[in-house]
């Protein structure tokens, strides 16, 4: 087993493009669940909408896309995420919280299954279960690091660069610069909103929506705004993933993706601006550490025959146990205040 390689890979992954994807998804869930108390279990659906919005609008016509600019693709993703939030919110936000949970989980699965179906492969050029690829070229052509950092602007620069203990390909570095910038923008936005009276109304809805109503607050309206805002953040997670992979793949957006984003949020601490960021990074570090260890053990043939075929699931088992321990021993996450978490809601 090559522990130094495991260390380098794990460190690198901790801040890499895929960590950003989970951070963005968790930032959105923080608005929904952390501040407003909405149970959105369909964040993967918002991510899928984000990824496919860019892919369909920006892919060249030769592969069935619209051949428009990447900017338009991103704009289309945002608009589609807003529409999805309205679609899910209008029928459910008036009802008890569990209805939203059921509808969001169902809608996100419907989105995935439709995207990978043969029907949409033929009629919407979604590429079925192999997805759409080849639309992110312009993103890498505009790699600003090429101008300032001396990194060649070859389209998909796969050369690996060392930055301290980290190792990234040229293309990933550029995704990281843009991705962390988006994370920072959302963090500032969240901070400004949550220290305002608007954020106070969201938190009051989380605590008791009838109380908010009795004071004249339009609870449905605020819930809808929160659903849209967090959904757009989730869509950016999908956009970053699609651009990084140069591929929008339906099965990246299984329900598990939503739950992993929740795990990141709870680890970091809900209703804290830094919660989803630190939680996402630590969570993804643990995840890639486990993946790297399992991969090395596999290639060193350390698993018994009976486990070998399913060894890829072991990181999830480990994370499940870790999450249980977290909830038992530190329910407030890294940033939360235990006293606050344990206040009873008589």
């Amino acid at each position, binding site marked *: 087993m090559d522990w130094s390689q495991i260390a380098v890979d794990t460190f690198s992954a901790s801040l890499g493009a895929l960590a950003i994807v989970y951070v963005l998804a968790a930032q959105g869930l923080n608005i929904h669940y952390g501040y407003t108390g909405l149970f959105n279990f369909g964040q993967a659906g918002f991510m899928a909408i984000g990824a496919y919005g860019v892919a369909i609008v920006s892919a060249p016509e030769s592969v069935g896309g619209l051949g428009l600019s990447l900017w338009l693709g991103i704009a289309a993703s945002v608009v589609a995420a807003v529409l999805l939030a309205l679609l899910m919110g209008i029928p459910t936000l008036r009802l008890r919280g569990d209805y939203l949970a059921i509808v969001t989980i169902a809608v996100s699965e419907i989105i995935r299954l439709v995207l990978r179906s043969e029907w949409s492969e033929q009629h919407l050029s979604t590429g079925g279960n192999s997805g759409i690829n080849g639309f992110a070229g312009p993103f890498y052509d505009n790699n600003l690091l090429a101008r300032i950092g001396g990194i060649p602007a070859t389209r998909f620069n796969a050369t690996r660069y060392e930055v301290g203990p980290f190792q990234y390909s040229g293309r990933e570095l550029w995704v990281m610069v843009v991705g962390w910038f988006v994370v920072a923008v959302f963090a500032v*936005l969240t901070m*400004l*909103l949550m*220290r*305002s*009276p*608007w*954020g*106070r*109304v969201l*938190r*009051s809805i*989380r*605590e*008791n929506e*009838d*109380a*908010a*109503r*009795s*004071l*004249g*607050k*339009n*609870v449905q309206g605020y819930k809808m*705004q929160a659903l849209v805002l967090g959904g757009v953040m989730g869509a950016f997670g999908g956009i970053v993933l699609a651009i990084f992979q140069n591929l929008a793949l339906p099965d990246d957006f299984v329900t598990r993706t939503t739950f992993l984003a929740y795990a990141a949020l709870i680890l970091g601490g809900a209703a804290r601006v830094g919660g989803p960021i630190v939680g996402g990074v630590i969570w993804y570090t643990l995840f890639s550490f486990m993946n790297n260890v399992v991969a090395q053990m596999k290639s060193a043939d350390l698993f018994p025959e009976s486990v070998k075929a399913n060894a890829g699931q072991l990181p999830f088992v480990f994370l499940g146990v870790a999450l249980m321990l977290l909830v038992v021993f530190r329910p407030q996450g890294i940033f939360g205040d235990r*006293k*606050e978490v344990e*206040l*009873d*809601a*008589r």
Partner: protein
Amino acid sequence: MPADEGSTPEASGTTTPKGRVSGPGGLLGLDPTVGVSKPDPILVADGVVRRFGGVTAVNVDHVEFQRGAITALIGPNGAGKTTFFNLLTCFDQPQEGDWSFNGQPLKGIAPHVVARRGLIRTFQLTKVLTKLTVIENMRLGATGQRGERFLPALFRGGWRAQEQSNTERADDLLVRFKMDHMREQFAGQLSGGQRKLLEMARALMTEPELIMLDEPMAGVNPALKQSLLEHVKSLRDEGRTVIFVEHDMDMVFDISDWVVVMAEGRIIAEGTPEQVGRNQAVIDAYLGSHHDSELDAIIHGDVPDHEVPIVTGDPDRAPSEEDR
């Protein structure tokens, strides 16, 4: 606010431009019969019926509440008082009936819109926002906040001054309710009685025209009750209308200008506290549900020194609202 001049606590009234007498004075000499019309009603209900399965929780033919007065709504547990409050404030919908506030029908209107029109209620089972501090609970009550809209929220300069003045008003109220020392505590750390106080203070942040209090005294420390009573009276002096549900007969007799009695969903009597106290139907309703009633004692002027309410709260529905 209507009529800040003139209305003193003791049964004087103000004459509105239309010649109607508002305030407690308008209740003088009214015939104490169920459904009697008031000179200046602020809230009127007609034929309101609410059934839960086979149970008819509320069945009110006609009732009017006088503007600028303090009206008590009393009745045994399960009489339908809370349900009637929920209906009037649109937190629940009746099967039949109409009701109006300031002459405007309220049927089918969202509860937050009712609140914005100036009809604010509190809850029997308190709904404080546990993970917000006391002061944040209070600030939430302020109306017309610019910073509560999405885009303006981003720019502190646009709402800072308003927030400041709301905070000052909130701090004044906290002092009046003797809660200023708990300003920075989470509302979830308060006792049941303190939660009642906070909820009432928060409701007052909205500057309501009509405030409906559901058992405001339940669980409140006796030492505080007296000042709370004074506070409710001062609301009337400011020209506000108060309707409250209460089991504490001392409070009912002390501060109310008019008493409406419910039993089994119906209004069985209304009148001044003295008139209602003499009403045989009322005595029967109470005795029917509670044999060692103190009502007799109170009616016959034999009020005990210690405070013994007839019924304290709904023990089966409102668990442990004792002061810690």
